[in-house]
């Protein structure tokens, strides 16, 4: 079994997971109480109900409905949103880039800040800076994201007025991002929501990275490196950090569910027109095709994230490539 086959198997497994998620969502929707043409029998003529059911294909056997659902999804057809009065797909195409911008910026902050803090703390383990930062990251890690968002909004949006309080861009000068000024404007609008989301993640990453660095620090090869006179800086960067980074790469894949969950709240608070806010507004209008579609997209993003993380670990860790060749069922996460 070669590495290529291992990767292929992971890819097939990911597709299978997505299909299973679709099936689960389909079952959940069918288990829910109520019918598309419901309740108010006195008002709606049964003949109309029957016609609507036929029109929507709801009178067909469930297996047939499932098949049609899969075929439609495969064609990128998520149905028609009655609250937005437009195809769900159009709404998704419009909102997903915003969520990706937010999640991407937050992820960048999460790992840049988190890794640096973790490495710094591990270098000064159990000394004053480490203890202070350790308590600080514990505190930030425990904050509810939406509450932190409100406080940052109050401080930097209202009191100090350094950052805009909401929206993706200046509606007058930059309705679409088409100039350098508008890119800067977008980043300026992005800074507060992304910081909120990234800070909480960074605190978690820092704690994780510190533990990973310390776990590696007691390994024999670190002692060997020191004993043969490798400069301290090189020991830390080449020997310790490289090995400690492996577990953080796995964490990278696991960060996506956290970011997407946070996105629902953060986007709602900062009026960021992304998928999370779309999902939330869909709940309020009980537009379940829209909710279902966002759940499916979010799951797909999560699966893709963990696949990418697996690939990265495979690239970074030669031991895993050897093990993958021997034990095909290995999971890294």
């Amino acid at each position, binding site marked *: 079994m070669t590495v290529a086959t291992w990767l292929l198997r992971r890819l097939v*497994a990911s597709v*299978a*997971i*997505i299909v*299973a*998620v679709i099936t*689960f*969502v389909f079952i*959940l*929707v069918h288990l*829910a*109480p*109520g019918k598309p043409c419901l309740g108010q029998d006195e008002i709606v003529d049964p003949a109309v109900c029957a016609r609507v059911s036929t029109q929507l294909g709801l009178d067909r056997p469930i297996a047939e409905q499932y098949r049609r659902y899969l075929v439609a999804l495969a064609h990128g057809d998520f149905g028609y949103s009655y609250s937005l009065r437009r195809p769900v797909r159009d709404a998704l195409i419009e909102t997903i880039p915003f969520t990706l911008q937010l999640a991407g910026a937050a992820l960048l902050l999460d790992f840049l800040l988190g890794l640096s803090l973790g490495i710094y703390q591990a270098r000064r*383990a*159990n000394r004053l800076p480490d203890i202070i930062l350790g*308590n600080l990251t*514990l*505190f930030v*890690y*425990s*904050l*509810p*994201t*939406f*509450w932190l968002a*409100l*406080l940052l909004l*109050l401080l930097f949006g*209202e009191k100090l007025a350094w950052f805009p309080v909401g929206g993706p861009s200046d509606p007058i000068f930059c309705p679409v991002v088409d100039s350098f000024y508008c890119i800067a404007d977008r980043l300026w609008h992005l800074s507060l929501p992304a910081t909120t989301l990234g800070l909480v993640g960074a605190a978690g990453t820092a704690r994780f990275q510190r*533990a990973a660095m*310390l*776990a590696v*620090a*007691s390994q024999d090869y670190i002692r060997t490196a020191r004993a043969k006179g490798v400069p301290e800086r090189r020991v830390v960067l080449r020997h310790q950090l490289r090995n400690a980074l492996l577990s953080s790469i796995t964490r990278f894949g696991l960060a996506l*569910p956290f970011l*997407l*969950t946070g996105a*629902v*709240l953060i986007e*709602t608070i900062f009026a960021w027109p992304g998928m999370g806010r779309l*999902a*939330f507004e*869909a*709940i309020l209008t*009980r*537009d*379940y095709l829209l*909710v*279902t579609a*966002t*759940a499916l997209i*979010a*799951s797909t993003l*999560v*699966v893709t994230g*963990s696949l990418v993380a697996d690939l990265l670990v495979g690239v970074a860790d030669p031991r895993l490539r050897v093990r993958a060749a021997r034990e095909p069922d290995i*999971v890294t*996460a």
Partner: protein
Amino acid sequence: MTLGTWLALALAVVLAAECVRALRQRGLRQERWRRFFRHRTTSWGLGILVFLALVAVAAPLIAPFDPNRQLDIVYLKNHPPSWTFLLGTDVLSRDVWSRAVYGARVSLGIGALGALMAVSLGTLVGAIAGYYQRWVDAVLMRGVDVGLALPRIFILLMAVALWDGLPFAALVIAIGLTSWFGTSRLVRAEVMSLREQDFVVAARALGAQTGRIIFRHVLPNAAAPIIVSAALGVGNVLLLEASLSFLGIGIKPPDPTWGNMIADNAPSIYTAPWSTVVPGLAISLVVMSLNAVADGVQDALDPREREPA
């Protein structure tokens, strides 16, 4: 605040402190308890948790007002903290301190019950998968893969949309059913390595039944990761409930939870920050304490991963 509520509050603080002190005293004799209390944050975390649990249980004694009563919507709206209203009043002139105290019941209750359910389920599935291996393991773990791929909040949003609001019990069950996947992976890995150990082989050789082997021999040795994930789980469920309540789809108002207190008062955060800051601080205090206690448990029960002092 009346004299009675002050007394009850003081009593809760003293009881919590005394409880931690007694545990420390007793623990000094045992190596694993000493390790548990090695970090000062663990003692603080434990004390805070005991205190908040006492407050939740004795809510009627400690809260001076009915948490849902609107005292005076005209004159006592967004009243700043004072001796009568220890933490001020909210936008509907309800006493924030009383609501926070009663909110502890709901929030901690959901956190504890949801996490209990999630951890039991995760442990059971993980133990079965890890012990039986082969196709049982394959089927269960593929299921867990799917569960991990579903972002919880979207599934819960979907459930809420489809079932049109969930009562308390259903919310706990929904949270419990969607939160066990991580635990089951942890437990499975632990059980897989434990089942090959000599004492398990010996038990099997003596003819012990599978259920007995799993529950008496294997799982007690996997206690550390299970307890740690339970402690972290309570915090996660608490945060999740707060997020759902904040979005207005958790516990129905007017019953207070820390999440919907933040949601109710977020619009007036600029003029009356106390009514939003207090429940938020309460949530982070609990989650922080749980994290600290989880660290302590890790240290106490799993000396293998002890970091160099």
